Each structure stands twice: as structure tokens, then as C-alpha cells.
């Protein structure tokens, strides 16, 4: 059971994540977009979208920091456990609040505005449900256990297992002892990755950084052969008047 949950499932999800992106990239360039809805509703989006995105960048950065950087490394370069804790709690709180506020606004917008409700797809609903579930699990883990509870040092267990997944030697034993919310959050995270390529989240990989360097005006040649020239009305008229000349 634990092998299935902590080894097979992560790899299955990662496989779907990669294969899904490859497949969608190759077969659905036309659907690869943010699917902007600002045209239909701008007021709530103006506030919610920047909050959500900046919060998400912070939260993603925080996860990278917490999961990918081993505790031994931060200690080795002289960052004390206490400093690390202060930085991660403040950073996490600020970006977390932004993310939650932004997400709430974006979801509210989907309910409040009739125009937006009408264009919300099933996939949008699934995406927002998944995002909400992930945020609730993650926040409750942090708030209930680490701020008010006895505390749990995920850097010694979850993070090690997580890195193990990428070294191809994940140790399920590290996860079986973790509190349930953290277990669910970790599994949810991988399931979320599996969902990713089938949602509008693919826009993340198209972040237009190349725009900073390219020339302003883009010139491009026409692809493929041109259509045959069409006769003008005068030519048609001529042909009608002198049919002999065209019969040849």
C-alpha cells in the first residue's frame, strides 16, 4: 500500500504530467492560452489576478525552497534553524494570504458575474476545486500543526522523500509517519501536477520572457504556396464576349 501511494502514484502522476504536456503541445496549440476573460469582467480581475499570481509565485518559490534545499545545506551556510523559521513563516504568511485572497476573488468572480459564469468550463471548475483543496490542505497543515500544534519538521521527512522521487530512490517509510494533512497535501500535489497539462495552467510554460529581447516588429514570410490568381471581372467579361479565345 505505501509503495503504491508513495512510489507508484508520484511516478504515474509525473508521467502524466510530462506526456500530457507533450501531447497537448503537439496537438492543441490552438487551445494553449491563458483563456483571458478580462474582456468580460475587469473590476474583480484587476485586483484578484495580480494578487493570485504574485501569491502563487511566492508559494511556488517557498515550496521549492522548503522541499529542494536540504536542511543540512542551509545549516552549512550558516542559516540557523530560527532564522529559517522566521523567514519561511513571514514569507509564507504574506504570499499565502495573497494567494488565498486572490483565489477567493477569482472564484467569487466566476459566481458573481453572469458573463463569466457562462464561459466557465468544467475544466475551470475542476481546476479551481483542485486549487482550493490544495490551499486548504496546505494552510491547515501549517496553521494547525506548525503554528498552534506540536510542530512537525517536514524538512527531515517529506522533503527528503520528495527529493528522493527525483533521485529515483523515494523512501516510503519517510511518509508513513507524517500527519494525515501533510500526507494528503503531498499526494494532492502530485495529482495536481497530473491535472496541470489538461487545464489552462499550460500558459505558465509560455511565460513571455523572450519579449524582453526580441525586436518590436516581427516580420514573417507566408507559408506554403500561394493560391492561383483569380480572373478579374473584366477578364471574365472578355472571355464571355469572345468565347473562341478561351476554348483553346
Amino acid at each position: 500500500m505505501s509503495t503504491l501511494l508513495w512510489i507508484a502514484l508520484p511516478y504515474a502522476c509525473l508521467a502524466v504530467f510530462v506526456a500530457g504536456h507533450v501531447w497537448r503541445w503537439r496537438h492543441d496549440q490552438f487551445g494553449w492560452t491563458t483563456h483571458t476573460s478580462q474582456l468580460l469582467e475587469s473590476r474583480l480581475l484587476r485586483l484578484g489576478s495580480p494578487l493570485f499570481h504574485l501569491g502563487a509565485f511566492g508559494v511556488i518559490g517557498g515550496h521549492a525552497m522548503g522541499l529542494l534545499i536540504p536542511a543540512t545545506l542551509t545549516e552549512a551556510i550558516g542559516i540557523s534553524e530560527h532564522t529559517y523559521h522566521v523567514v519561511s513563516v513571514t514569507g509564507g504568511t504574506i504570499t499565502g494570504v495573497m494567494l488565498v485572497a486572490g483565489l477567493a476573488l477569482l472564484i467569487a468572480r466566476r459566481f458573481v458575474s453572469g458573463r463569466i459564469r457562462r464561459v466557465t468550463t468544467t475544466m475551470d471548475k475542476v481546476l479551481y476545486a483542485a486549487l482550493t483543496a490544495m490551499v486548504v490542505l496546505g494552510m491547515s497543515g501549517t496553521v494547525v500543526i506548525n503554528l498552534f500544534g506540536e510542530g512537525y519538521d517536514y524538512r527531515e521527512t517529506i522533503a527528503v522523500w520528495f527529493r528522493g522521487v527525483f533521485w529515483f530512490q523515494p523512501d516510503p517509510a519517510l511518509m508513513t509517519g507524517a500527519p494525515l494533512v501533510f500526507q494528503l497535501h503531498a499526494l494532492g500535489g502530485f495529482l495536481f501536477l497530473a491535472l496541470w497539462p489538461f487545464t489552462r495552467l499550460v500558459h505558465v510554460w509560455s511565460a513571455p520572457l523572450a519579449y524582453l529581447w526580441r525586436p518590436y516588429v516581427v516580420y514573417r514570410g507566408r507559408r506554403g504556396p500561394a493560391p492561383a490568381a483569380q480572373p478579374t471581372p473584366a477578364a471574365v467579361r472578355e472571355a464571355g464576349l469572345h468565347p473562341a479565345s478561351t476554348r483553346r
Partner: protein
Amino acid sequence: MRIRAQVAMVMNLDKCIGCHTCSVTCKQTWTNREGTEYVWFNNVETKPGIGYPKHYEDQERWKGGWKLDGKGRLVLRSGGRVKRLSRIFANPDLPTIDDYYEPATFDKDILVNAPAGLTDTPVKKPYSALTGEPMKIEWGANWEDSLGGNTFAEDPNIARMPAEAAAKVKFEFEKTFMFHLPRICEHCLNPACVSACPSGAMYKREEDGIVLVDQDRCRGWRMCVSACPYKKVYVNHATGKAEKCTLCFPRIEAGQPTICSETCVGRLRYLGILWYDEDAVLAAASVPESELLDAQRAVFLDPFDESVQRAARDAGHPDEWIEAAQASPVWKLISEYRIALPLHPEYRTLPMVWYVPPLSPVLDAVGAAGRDDSDADDVFHTIQDLRIPVEYLASLFTAGDAEAAGGVLMKLAAMRSYMRARTLDGTVAQELLDGIGMTGAQVEAMYRLLAIAKYDERYVIPAAHAKDAAALEAQAAAQPDCSLDCEGGPGMGGEAAVERFHLVDAEEVRPGRPGLFSRRGDGRRGLTINPMRGRS
């Protein structure tokens, strides 16, 4: 010098009757789809008026087009690259659907299915095409048609004038002054939309200068929409991608005029090619405002100049194109007769749809003032006295240069009087010719082009295949072994050429085979397990 060809358009506003045929045929062809209900690649607005979308000319508000920064460098009005990316999550300059209008549909079934013998006539009701709810229609793409909206005091071109002048304008307009302004994408030489597109999905075609959105590469960052000062890029809210006027490129490639031109009832549109020097564009867009009109005219290269012809030939342009440039009605109207003017040159995008400003409102004013509208002297005086209409036209077409706008009107008035004398009693009004600095032959040719030119004179569009042939010849000369059957060569091109006229290759459409790789109803590639939209 880098010589390029541009397919450009001129519209003679005197002849526009505001029938909207161009808009309707364009919509039938390109935007009668879900997601583009509110989109008019071609729209006709009444001037003065606030236009479509509302107040689009107010660049303080929408930040469209280019401006000169403190150091005189050309920058997008909405800011530099970093600033634009920093605002990508929500674009503060994006118009919302209410700035266009809420598209409506009607429950027409109620008419079709009404039982016989009703005492009251059944009435169809409008429903929002966005929400499906009943709605009240309160605005549209041509709500102010023929000054119907009483909104002209809000016209950004008038709002800029001092209050006193604006009051006078209102008065003058109510009495005399009104005209229709058909607008499509300008296919600019210095397009702000392309320059603002973060993903590089928008491009200007090398062959003919048509500005397009690559639908497969657009990622929905919607920066082009706000950057275009003419508001001629639109968000398709069903696909989440940008769309715009294509200048009917499949027709242009086949040597045919655009749909709006083909169906124009007033026959007031002209299409032709212009040579321009790509390296001169940036400098022309960066001159001080008072020099903009002349700088933009100077970007075009004289097709009769032999060095230009040589450059064109060296750049691989076929003879057919060089001849077409000489016969181009657009070149004649812009550069030879100098009666066509660009719309809002102060946006600095170098627009490629130019306009012959309307003389008729001025003639009406001449009549209203009790003068003789067929007497050139009277008309000249009125043009000088009637500052308001001329200044208004100047704020549209010459970046405020009333002298230049008046000069064009004088030419048009002189042409009328000259031709009247010529046809009535055969006299040549030499003093009129001297006044406008044109020869009799030129004025007569200009008259013919404006008044009676036939289809083939109004649309001089060299087919794109000539270019392919020239390119292949060059290729064949470089690789003598390669027969005509080489990759992409004419030996294998016959069928493909016909197919390319459609948006989809014939073999790629697989009717009756729904699956992951099949195409949507509109012919585009799409997923059938649809992550995009749930509704039909």
C-alpha cells in the same frame, strides 16, 4: 535600404453613404461566430462621434500607439517592455465588452411559431449573447449613426478643443457637418499591436505587409488589444485569443480585392501596392508632430524611379509587382495627387489605410451660407472661413495641420470647378490649375480615378503566385540540378495551390472521424476531450 511591398487602401469619404454593406459582408465572412459577436473587423462610424469602441481615440485613457518620450525616442504609450510584462496579470488599459457593446440575439422562433389568428402581432425580444438573459439594447457598433446618438460633444477630437470652439463646433455640426468613416485595421508599417505582443504571435508579412495573428501561437496575453490605437485587435472570448482584420489575405493573394472593397456600394475603396523602405520607418515615426504627415508620405518609394525598380528587382520582386506598383491607385492618390491622408498620423504607427477627406460637408456649408457651391472662389473662401470643419478634419487626418487638410479640400474643389468648365464649354481653367499646382491631364486623371474608375483601375493587386515563381526561378538558378519538381516547386504545386485557398488542407479534414486529432467546426485543430469549453 530594405525595400518592401505593402498592400494599402485608400477610401474616398465623399462617396461613403454609410450603408454598412462593407461591415455586414465582412462580418458574414469573418466574424459571425461565437466569441466574435461584438467584433467588427470593418465598422462604419459617424463623425463627429465617439466611435467604436467608445472613445477609442482618447489615448490618454487607452494608452494606444506610440509617443515620443522626454528624450525624443519612440516608445509605446503604454510603457516599455518590463512595465508591460509587469501588468500582464491584469491589463489596466484593456477595454471591456461594455466599451464595445453587449451583443444581442433575438428569439425569432416566436415569430415563426406564432399561431394563426392572433390579435396582437408577436414581438421578438432581445437576449444577451453573453449571458442568455433578456436585455435592453443600449449601445451598438453604430449607435450614433447619422448623429443619432447626440454624442458628438464627447468626440475625443472635439473634447481636445477649447470650450468656446467646442460649442461652436456643436452648433456648426448640428447645422451642416457630418460624414461616415469606415474603418478596418490599418496594417501599419510600425504596428503597435505587433510590438506589444509578448509571445511574438503577431507579425507583419514580408510579402505584402498584412498584419496577422498566428492563432496557434497567441497565448491570450491581450496586450495587442490595448496597444492598437485604432482598437482593431479584438479578444475572441470563446477561444481566449486575439483576432483581427486579415485584409482578406486569401483573396489578396489571389489578386482579388478584400470583401469590404468588393462589396462597397459607393465604390469608394482603392487597393494597390506601395514600395517602402523598411529602414526608414522608425525615423519617420519619430519626427516631431508637425512633420509627421510629410515624413509618412516620404517613406513611400517612387515606383517610376529606376533605382527603386532596380532595388525591387534585386530584392526578388517580380516584374508583375513592379508594374502593379506603377499602376497602383493608392500611390496616385497618396503621393502623386496628394489628396489622401492617413487617419491619426500622430499615433505614429504609420497606418496604411488612407482617406480622401470629404468635401461635401464643406459644400453644404457653402450653400447654407448663400454662396455658390460650384464657384471655386466661393468654395475656397468658405474653406478658409469655415475653420471648424477643416480643423476637425485636421485633427483626424493631419495631426492638427489645418493648412494641409484645407489644401486637400481646395484640390478637390478645384477639380470640381475645372471639370465643370471643361465639360460645359470646353474651357481650361488655367488659374485653377496654377492654384493647386497640377496639370490639366493630372486633374482629369484624378477626376477619372475618383469618379468613374472601373474595377480594374480601383483594385490593382498583383497575385502572390508571381512572387513564388520569381523566388523559385532564383532558387533554380542557384541550384541548376533541381528540376521543377523540387520540394515546393511548381512541378508539385498544382493541387496544393488550390487547396491553400481554404484555411485547411483537404487531407487534414477527416469528416466522420471524431477523435483526438479531428478538427473543430471552424476547421481548426482542437482537442475533442475539450479542456476549453463545456457549452455548445
